[in-house]
């Protein structure tokens, strides 16, 4: 069972699609429940993973390896370790919640919506568990198309501009990454002689710094755009403002984590020397991202773009944690990825709820909602506190670990980054006050119905997570620690080993490789 579980988790959503197609068009409620059923099933199946996850073993678990395109050395290779375990759970969890939350929001082309949603879920899950770089790239690109439709078809007024900008931005980055993947493929070929896309073969590649730098930049750009890091973030506010609620939740909750996941899984282990060289740059961009994101969030007029910029700021924290290159920073970064998924996902759900009631997202149109919607106010308050990282909530543990890790590497960075803590309080509370407090100036805000059962059912699990991670984070940290510590040692070890390599140009490396390979009598069979 251990071998097939990952394939089940990744491809179970696709099972729902034919079911939805067969359902009659006039019965959208059936379609909705079918989609929810599939997502819930996927979540339950994915619960098998943490139950049987062995936190002591830092390596890959539940691995499955099947030949796919053998002649090119491409294998269907999945695997899960401490790093991707919680991201998979986050994906299935958020997908289920966002599907359940858009029952009333999506009215036209209901079937198409849920089908693209399930496709998106498969794409995302695939990215987190794929170990074969080719398979990873297929999922990475595959997940773009449904997202394009989610924003493009069911989006807001400027949806076309937003979705094209989103796809072009990501595509631009990932094409460079594709070139880098192929470069790796041929470097590996010339070094070991065998054809292989296996990530672990690439881990063993002894690349001199001169080559590492270029590949590092290509990968880094693709992930930086996805994170989004400072200069490449302008697609995020547009995409969020125009996306439907469910799309925003998933976009913020999971898609952004692929960038940071990429940092951990690909960037650091593959090119350790280049990583250490670029750490100051990445740190600087992260810090700018934190402060810049927060300042921009403060002046936004639209709640959703405010939350989008807050995501830029939060993920600036995550990348800073990862760049700190020590265990606290990494664990803080990983935990903050989960927290951001939970709190920002919840924020978008809340914004979606008031959007459904008032059909506007401008902060000034709101005011004094607490009077009419007390329960909503309580949820909104809890999530706001979690977002600004109040101790006792999930945000604090992640943020503190990140800042601690950064402090150990460079106190000045930590000092600048900690200002982010103040700024996040400023923009969140200012927004919260303008939306919730004050007297009800606009009559439309008075008679708003409070949360119905469905909306409460969506928010309660998220609040449970906010306090679970806040009060007892060890249940998460314990599982991550093994894999992160192992990866960190691996990166440091390879960095020292490869530092002594003479710096060769591309052609020298390739020819040198071919030179040694020609002695090898027969090309080695691609390693499984």
């Amino acid at each position, binding site marked *: 069972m251990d071998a097939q579980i990952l394939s089940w988790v990744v491809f179970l959503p696709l099972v729902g699609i034919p079911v939805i197609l067969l359902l009659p068009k006039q019965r959208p409620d059936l379609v909705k429940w079918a989609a929810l059923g599939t997502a819930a099933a996927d979540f339950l199946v994915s619960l098998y993973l943490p139950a049987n996850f062995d936190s002591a073993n830092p390596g890959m678990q539940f691995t499955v390896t099947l030949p796919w395109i053998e002649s090119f050395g491409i294998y269907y290779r999945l695997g899960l370790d401490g790093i991707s375990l919680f991201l998979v759970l986050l994906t299935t969890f958020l997908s289920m919640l966002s599907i359940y939350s858009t029952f009333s929001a999506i009215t036209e082309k209901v079937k198409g919506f849920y089908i693209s949603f399930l496709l998106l879920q498969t794409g995302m899950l695939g990215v987190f568990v794929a170990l074969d770089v080719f398979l990873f790239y297929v999922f990475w690109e595959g997940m773009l198309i449904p997202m394009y439709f989610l924003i493009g078809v069911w989006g807001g007024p400027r949806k076309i501009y937003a979705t094209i*900008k989103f796809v072009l*931005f990501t595509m631009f980055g990932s094409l460079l990454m594709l070139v880098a993947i192929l470069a790796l493929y041929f470097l590996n070929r010339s070094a070991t002689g065998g054809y292989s896309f296996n990530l672990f073969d690439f881990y063993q590649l002894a690349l001199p710094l001169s080559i590492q730098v270029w590949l590092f930049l290509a990968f880094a750009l693709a992930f930086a755009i996805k994170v989004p890091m400072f*200069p490449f*973030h*302008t*697609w995020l506010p547009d995409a969020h403002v125009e996306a439907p609620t469910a799309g925003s939740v998933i976009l913020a909750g999971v898609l952004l984590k692929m960038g940071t996941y990429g940092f951990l899984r690909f960037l650091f282990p593959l090119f350790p020397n280049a990583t250490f060289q670029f750490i100051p740059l990445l740190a600087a961009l992260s810090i700018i991202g934190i402060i*810049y994101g927060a*300042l*921009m969030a*403060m*002046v*936004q007029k639209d709640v959703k773009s405010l939350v989008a910029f807050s995501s830029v700021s939060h993920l600036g924290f995550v990348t800073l944690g990862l760049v700190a290159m*020590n*265990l*606290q920073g990494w*664990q*803080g970064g990983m935990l903050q990825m989960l927290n951001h998924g939970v709190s920002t996902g919840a924020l978008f759900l809340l914004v979606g709820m008031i959007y459904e009631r008032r059909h506007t997202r401008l902060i000034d149109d709101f005011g*004094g909602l*607490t*009077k009419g919607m007390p329960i909503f106010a309580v949820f909104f308050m809890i999530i706001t*506190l979690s977002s600004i990282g*109040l*101790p*006792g909530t999930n945000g*604090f*543990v992640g943020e*503190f*670990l990140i*800042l*601690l890790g950064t*402090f*150990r590497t460079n*106190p000045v960075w*930590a*000092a600048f980054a*900690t*200002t982010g*803590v*103040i700024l996040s*309080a*400023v923009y969140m*509370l*200012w927004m919260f*006050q303008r939306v*919730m*407090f*004050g*007297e009800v100036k606009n009559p439309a805000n008075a008679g708003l119905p409070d949360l119905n059962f469905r909306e409460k059912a969506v928010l309660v699990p998220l609040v449970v997570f906010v306090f679970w991670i806040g*009060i*007892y*984070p*060890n249940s998460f*940290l*314990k599982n991550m*620690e093994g894999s992160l*510590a192992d990866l960190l040692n691996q990166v440091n070890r390879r960095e020292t080993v490869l530092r002594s390599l003479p710096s060769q140009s591309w052609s020298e490396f390739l020819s040198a490789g071919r030179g040694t390979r020609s002695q090898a009598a027969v090309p080695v069979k691609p390693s499984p």
Partner: protein
Amino acid sequence: MDLVGLIPLLPILGFAAIGLGGRWLPKKAVSILGPGVVGASFLMTLAVFFQLFSLPPSERRVVTSLFSWVVAGNFSVDISFLVDPLSMVMALVVTGVGFLIHVYSVGYMGEDPGYRRYFAYLNLFTFSMLCLVLSSNFLLMYLGWEGVGLCSYLLIGFWYEKKSAADAGKKAFIVNRVGDFGFALGVMLIFTTFGTLDFGGVFSQAPALSTEGGQRIATAITLLLFLGAVGKSAQIPLYTWLPDAMEGPTPVSALIHAATMVTAGVYMVARCHALYLLAPFSMAVVAVIGALTAIMAASIGLVQNDIKRVLAYSTISQLGYMFLACGVGAFTAGIFHLVTHAFFKALLFLGAGSVIHALSGEQDLRKMGGLRKYMPATYTTFLIATLAISGVPLLSGFFSKDQILSAAFFSPQGGNFLWLLGIVTASMTAFYMFRLFFLTFTGGCRASEEVQHHIHESPHSMTVPLMILGFLAVVGGYIGMPHALGGVNAIAGYLAPVFADLPHLPEPSLGMEYLLMATSVVVAFLGISLAYFFYVRSPQAAERLRQNFLYTLLLNKYYVDEIYQALIVSPIVAGSRWVWERFDLGIIDGAVNGSARLVEKLALRGRQLQTGYVRQYAMAVVMGVVIILAYLVWG
């Protein structure tokens, strides 16, 4: 000793019960549950206190750990509580005064629609404050630290319809957050230098920092922690939020902005005295800021017309005293003043509360007066508290303030300048307190007609706590009676094990001490008589006083708020709006959209190539053939 876990647990359970109970919980149940939980916690603290007291002085330090909170590599922090004389004193104050204020609130907040929400927040506050006070490591203290910040935000903005209340809440939280910024960095620096956040571990390794480099680190840590204290205990420059915090209900001001939360900074400085001793520069900074804040706040308090704002500035000023005490090394005096201040300042606020309650919400001194005959109980308790705070002998204020002043005078770092500031502030305190007293209780009633006949004495649920606090304000002083006056200074002895590692302060000669006491008493009476002269004897004199510019300067609080707004807040907001339009939309989006337009222009140019004339296409074909052939033949 394992009961200590229960002390914070009870309030959080109360919060959960009331918070989740919501509508189904009848008001009666809430008014029993809310104060009851805190009362039980107070009894629990008493029990633990006596258990601690039974131990021999040297072992009065027990750490009980509940469960490990965060473990990440060699960084491991657990939820653990520390029971020692200092934390017990604080816990007793928090739960004791807290309980009284809860009981008082039952009456005060009786008809308020948000009754349940109020008690839920109050219980949550008690929980956070207890976590802060009882914690045995910096991270749990930080949790309590921000928890109380959150509760003060919620309670200040309790009447959220009022924009000013919501603004005040937001301002309080953000200014606290600026302080927490320093505190967080301090905690991180502690971890990187000592490898642990547990008080025991940190303070035992502290002497290792006495080297040159070590001292610089110690100074950095202590200053960062002090920045946190400044934010939380409203010292210069981060005090502007406390006067605005008066927007909240009065019991909240009494509990949070007088007795407990604002004293957190003093407690933290006292708790980290081992680090502060290693950094004389930080000690000097604490002392100077304390003294300056004291005199500055007192000066503003002289002219304020809102009864609660006067008390707010008085609190800032008294907190200045406590920091002055800690700065000059007299931590015991600081804590002693903290305790006595908790009693009489809570009493003053509750008294003011019952006055406002009676005048159906009126807070302006100029519209009060002559309440003596209507509210005898409030009148007497208010008089006791005013005497105490002014430093009239035989009352608690006198003993604690005098210790601080003598410590300031005699301590090497102190020097007479600080003592002078202290004495002048003492006289100012006496003046504005009695100004307030005379304006509210004596003379003709300036309230409007229909307000006047509503005036009534507050119900027993409000006056009983006043009396208890009145009693404590009187008795409180004797636990710290100095030897000079025959007392045994019990509190110093009690706190000795905690501050054992303090260098012994020079024993002043009896004569000098009496002289100092005499001067402080004279100064106090000077203030009282001045107030009597201006506000009872000849109100016209007070009128003349209001003309000069000094009065308007003080009335507008040295324009500090306006300066902050102009120098910090609006530039940041305007600047980021400008950056957003110019940079985010302008440059980055400009580049993105620009590249799209560029491609479009190229495409247009490309279109011209296709003219539609078939012969041109044929020409192109032939040209292609010719070129390929040429390549083949000559290539």
